[in-house]
């Protein structure tokens, strides 16, 4: 097993600046790696497939290791030893037709039998059948409630199958894939610029994080130098995005407990962030603002002033909302103790973002796999141990404060110079990796450069891949009526997960 752990040898500085080397492994070594994951010797960061075979990205401390198993038909199942890999393997089988041998769950995942074709990224075959058996739950007086994929509110599509005894939940099984857009196929052969646009549309609320992760991956693969100012502007956008999402979700989570006042006030603050982003970067959500080589729009004096004013306003108004949350016993009664996520599970699934940090997993890509400019900024990574809905809200409240501090630092120390630089010619076959801390957690982008400035292959991995299964775990033993509250406190992405 130590041989495998020795392969986790690419340190942060290396993959941040250079093309990513990979270790070609044998099926035996692949299985050893899976066993090591199951024992907790390393973390699974991503698992995906390309035309060459299957890839597994492992993390241990600040080091990453990319294992590649070249195959055309099957590979030893990782999910058999390490549960977090199961849905990824099912997705690999749906998209590429590579069979995980010995996998405990052989049902399709993203493919609902409605594509008209199977394995669109591998060797296409006839469409699979649409039938989908849910996991059984047996016992006296159990009943099922089916929710979605179309919901009463304007939210993303997902199907939830609850098995309950009275109000108490026995099992929740989610079925996702309704928002599948075929990102993998769209990326294949696309130009690097078009790739940036597609990456930015993978999950709309994290468009900056995705575009930045993609840009990092391309720049690393090409060995490109990005102007200092561009990096700082990207961080500014990323922090604005985090701020908007945290503010919106803190209010929305309270609203799901029937406390509409928080939503109303947080909604106003979120709107202010979006308007400031519009004034500074020309788009409320800052879509298409980050491109490989830099940013598409430089910050002018008016934009600078708009963001500074925004920070002042939120600093003045947000503490009163935190106090309202802290002094509303009826609201705390709903959030404290609800939807408890076991820290052991959070560690095993390598849950990123506030979900992990509310359950003792103190990991933040900005600090632990540091990238510019965060390596020169001061910030803290809040962490809690209680792991309930309240903990996730409090982590996000603390992160709002950290983000405001970061924006201050970014505005004051913003370096001058160009906001973008031309990209060098790429070498076909080079691979690059990007990892960015979005508001949900670590957004990963992996690209392989093709001939003539195109993408040969890519993979975008949303943090939600590791968080969705935890929603199912956290809700067990709670009552049905508390599910919306728990679910909102995780707020996983459907679109980013469904690809």
């Amino acid at each position, binding site marked *: 097993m130590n041989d495998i752990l020795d392969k986790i040898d690419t340190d942060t500085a290396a993959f941040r600046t250079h093309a990513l080397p990979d270790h070609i492994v044998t099926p035996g070594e692949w299985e050893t790696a899976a066993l090591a994951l199951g024992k907790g010797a390393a973390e699974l960061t991503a698992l995906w497939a390309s035309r060459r075979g299957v890839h597994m990205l492992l993390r241990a401390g600040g080091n990453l290791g990319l294992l590649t198993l070249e195959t055309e038909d099957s590979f030893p199942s990782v999910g058999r030893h390490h549960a977090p890999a199961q849905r990824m393997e099912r997705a690999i089988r749906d998209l590429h037709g590579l069979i995980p041998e010995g996998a405990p769950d052989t049902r399709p995942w993203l493919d609902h039998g409605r594509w008209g074709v199977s394995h669109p990224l591998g060797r296409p075959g006839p469409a699979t059948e649409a039938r989908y058996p849910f996991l059984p739950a047996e016992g006296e007086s159990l009943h099922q*409630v089916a929710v979605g994929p179309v919901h009463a509110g304007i939210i993303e599509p997902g199907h939830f199958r609850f098995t309950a005894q009275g109000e108490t939940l026995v099992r929740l099984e989610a079925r996702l894939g309704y928002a599948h857009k075929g990102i993998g196929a769209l990326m294949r052969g696309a130009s690097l610029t078009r790739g940036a646009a597609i990456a930015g549309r993978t999950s709309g609320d994290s468009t900056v994080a995705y575009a930045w992760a993609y840009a990092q991956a391309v720049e690393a693969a090409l060995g490109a130098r990005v102007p200092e100012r561009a990096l700082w502007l990207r961080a500014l956008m990323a922090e604005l995005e985090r701020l908007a999402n945290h503010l919106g979700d803190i209010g929305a989570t309270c609203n799901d407990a*029937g406390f509409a006042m928080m939503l109303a006030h947080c909604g106003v603050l979120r709107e202010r962030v979006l308007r400031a982003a519009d004034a500074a970067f020309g788009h409320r959500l800052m879509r298409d603002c980050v491109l490989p080589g830099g940013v598409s729009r430089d910050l002018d004096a008016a934009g600078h002033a708009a963001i500074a004013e925004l920070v002042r306003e939120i600093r003045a108004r947000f503490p009163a909302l935190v106090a309202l949350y802290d002094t509303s016993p009826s609201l705390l009664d709903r959030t404290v103790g609800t939807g408890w996520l076991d820290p052991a599970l959070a560690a095993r699934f390598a849950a990123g973002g506030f979900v992990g940090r509310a359950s003792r997993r103190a990991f933040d890509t900005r600090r632990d796999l540091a990238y510019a400019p965060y390596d020169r900024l001061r910030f803290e990574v809040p962490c809690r141990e209680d792991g309930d809905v309240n903990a996730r809200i409090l982590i996000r409240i603390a992160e709002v404060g950290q983000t405001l501090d970061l924006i201050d630092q970014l505005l004051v120390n913003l370096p001058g110079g160009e906001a973008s630089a031309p990209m060098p010619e790429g070498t076909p076959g080079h691979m690059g990796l990007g990892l960015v801390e979005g508001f949900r957690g670590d957004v990963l982008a992996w690209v392989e450069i093709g001939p003539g400035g195109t993408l040969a292959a890519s993979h975008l991995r949303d943090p939600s891949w590791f968080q969705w299964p935890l929603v199912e775990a956290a809700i067990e033993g709670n009552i049905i009526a508390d599910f919306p509250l728990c679910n909102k406190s995780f707020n996983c992405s459907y679109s980013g997960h469904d690809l």
Partner: protein
Amino acid sequence: MGMIEGFGIQGLQMLLVVALAPGLTGLVRRIKARLMRRRGASILQPYRDIARLMRKEVVLAENASWLFRAAPYLIFAATWVAAALVPTFATGLQFSWTADLIALVALLGSARFFLALAALDVGTGFGGLGASREMMFASMAEPAMLLTVFVIALVAGSTQLSTVVQAFSGPTVGLRVSLGMAAIALIIVAIAENGRIPVDNPSTHLELTMVHEAMVLEYSGRHLAMIELAAALKLLLYVSLIACLFAPWGIAREGDGPAALAFGALAYVGKLAVGGSALAAFEISVAKMRIFRVPSFLGFALMLGLLGTLLLFVSRTL
């Protein structure tokens, strides 16, 4: 007062409650929106909604039985009759001999019974979920309501609303501990029965947390209009009931002239506005309870009702 005027005033009362009910719902929504610094829809929006629903076609589940189609009318009729029995601006109405508090509870209970049956009828998961929650709440709310009725009856010497109102607005009743308890109990029951926060959230989009809304999810068109109107009437009924029992000022007596009637009507509209505003302010200041906390919330009302009754057995002056 002649028979004709009597029927006239009773008819006026029946029309008045239907005409005002959506307005009260609209007022509560509007005030909630204003308190949250939103602009909010017009107070007239519920009228427009009902008019729109009346025009729309009805979409029925394939397996819906006659019960599902009949229930909205039964629910509306029962609630309307109940609302028409509560003295709003005048006592001594033509039907006041039937206006018994226990009859009121029975009418509302029947409406609930049909709504729960209709919710179960089409067999969706949400209907069953809503019906079971509604019945769990009702098993606590109804006894609490009845105990409140007993307190009132013991003080006023009657369960007939006209008599109660006349007794309460007279000089002999005054401030009593038992009536205070009954008032709080009745307010708690009213919040639960109307599915307001903290018991249920009338404006939620989350199917899994709904109680009343979960039961009516399958309804559409004129059926939904009937149910929405019945829900608005029920809210109006409870506000009117609390107002006429615990704030019986300005209600016209039997045989009063048009001036007293007009003043009564004006006072009534004022009471509705105060009740609606208080409800809105309360709703935005608390979060919704966990479902299983609701029985203890209603249990509190039950205990207050019981305590009030017991106090009156100890001494008639408490």
